[in-house]
């Protein structure tokens, strides 16, 4: 058999070396865990119950939809991921998966997750999942992220939808309770990401992403972070005020909110004096604990209320 020499770039395009774990990494597993967690809490807080198998499928579809969004986000953002230190090791900039492989993977999983949720659970939750994927990819990733410092404020809505989808999967409708859960994550997003943007400012500058500190400066960002933190702390107590969480939860949320505001206050006061960004890093770390703790408390509280009756 004769052997023809073919440019290596052509064979690279034909044969993939991507491992399953590369595809898993493409789904942003850490974001997926948060989505699964908040969606489960949305289901627990919802009145009534759901067949455990159907509930499992709802969670599975929501997590696959979230993973698909992550893959499509990495496909579109591959150019800036290659510039930022935090993201250079992602599968596309690292050369383990091609952009077209990521695009097809994300698109197929998006369609499958939405259709499966609609057919097996209900169409309201499927519509919400489809809207979340659309919002995250088209509104946030393609439009807002590179054009306005309000990118993560508005884009935060995409991350706030999972508990609403969880609620809709159980009840088939939407009421004030899931909107409050939505509001907590929505208001949590700006202080969380701005704390990160304050100590990763140069990274975002290099990638030309108009994060708040890069556009309006550090001083204004710190003030806005504090204002959002105060509103977040108040919204964290709303479940008790509206009667779908206990007083114990309310006290816990109040204490966590107070700590959040205290850290945000320190960030505001520190100005740009601290080159190590110790306060910003502390706020960023605590913001993750805050969201997990608050939703865990809501979940435990909901189980407790159902058991007591």
């Amino acid at each position, binding site marked *: 058999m004769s*052997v023809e020499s073919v440019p290596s770039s052509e*064979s690279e395009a034909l044969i*993939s*070396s991507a491992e399953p774990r590369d*595809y898993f990494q493409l789904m942003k597993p850490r974001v997926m865990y948060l989505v699964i967690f908040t969606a489960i809490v949305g289901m627990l807080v919802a009145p009534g119950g759901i067949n455990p*198998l*159907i509930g499992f499928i709802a969670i599975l579809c929501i997590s696959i939809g979230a993973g698909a969004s992550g893959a499509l986000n990495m496909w579109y953002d591959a150019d800036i991921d290659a510039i930022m230190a935090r993201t250079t090791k992602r599968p596309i900039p690292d050369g383990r998966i091609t952009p077209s492989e990521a695009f097809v993977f994300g698109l197929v999983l998006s369609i499958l997750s939405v259709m499966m949720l609609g057919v097996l659970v209900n169409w309201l939750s499927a519509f919400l999942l489809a809207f979340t994927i659309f919002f995250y990819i088209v509104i946030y990733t393609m439009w807002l992220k590179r054009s306005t410092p309000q990118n993560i404020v508005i884009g935060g809505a995409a991350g706030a939808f999972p508990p609403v989808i969880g609620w809709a999967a159980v009840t088939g409708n939407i009421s004030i309770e899931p909107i409050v859960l939505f509001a907590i994550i929505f208001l949590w997003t700006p202080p969380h990401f701005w704390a990160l943007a304050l100590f990763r400012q140069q990274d975002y500058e290099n990638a030309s992403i108009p994060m708040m500190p890069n556009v309006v400066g550090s001083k204004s960002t710190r003030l806005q972070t504090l204002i959002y933190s105060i509103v977040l702390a108040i919204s964290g107590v709303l479940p008790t005020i509206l009667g779908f969480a206990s007083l114990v939860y309310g006290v816990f949320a109040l204490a966590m909110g107070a700590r959040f505001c205290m850290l945000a206050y320190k960030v505001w006061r520190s100005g740009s004096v601290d080159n190590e960004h110790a306060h910003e890093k502390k706020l960023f770390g605590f913001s993750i604990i805050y969201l997990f703790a608050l939703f865990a408390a809501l979940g435990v509280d909901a189980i407790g209320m159902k058991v007591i009756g």
Partner: protein
Amino acid sequence: MAEGKFTNQTVEMTDKQKKAQRARNIAIALALGAVVVLLYFVTWSKLGANILQRPL
């Protein structure tokens, strides 16, 4: 990423590519199998006792 070389009609894969392809195949097979099992049990769960109440 890949160092495969063409022979007349086919592409010779490197060991790394073969290993990756095999791992992908297994992952796809497991995922498809899981979906089949899931749909089987969901069908039971959705229909329940109604499966017995059909016109003869």
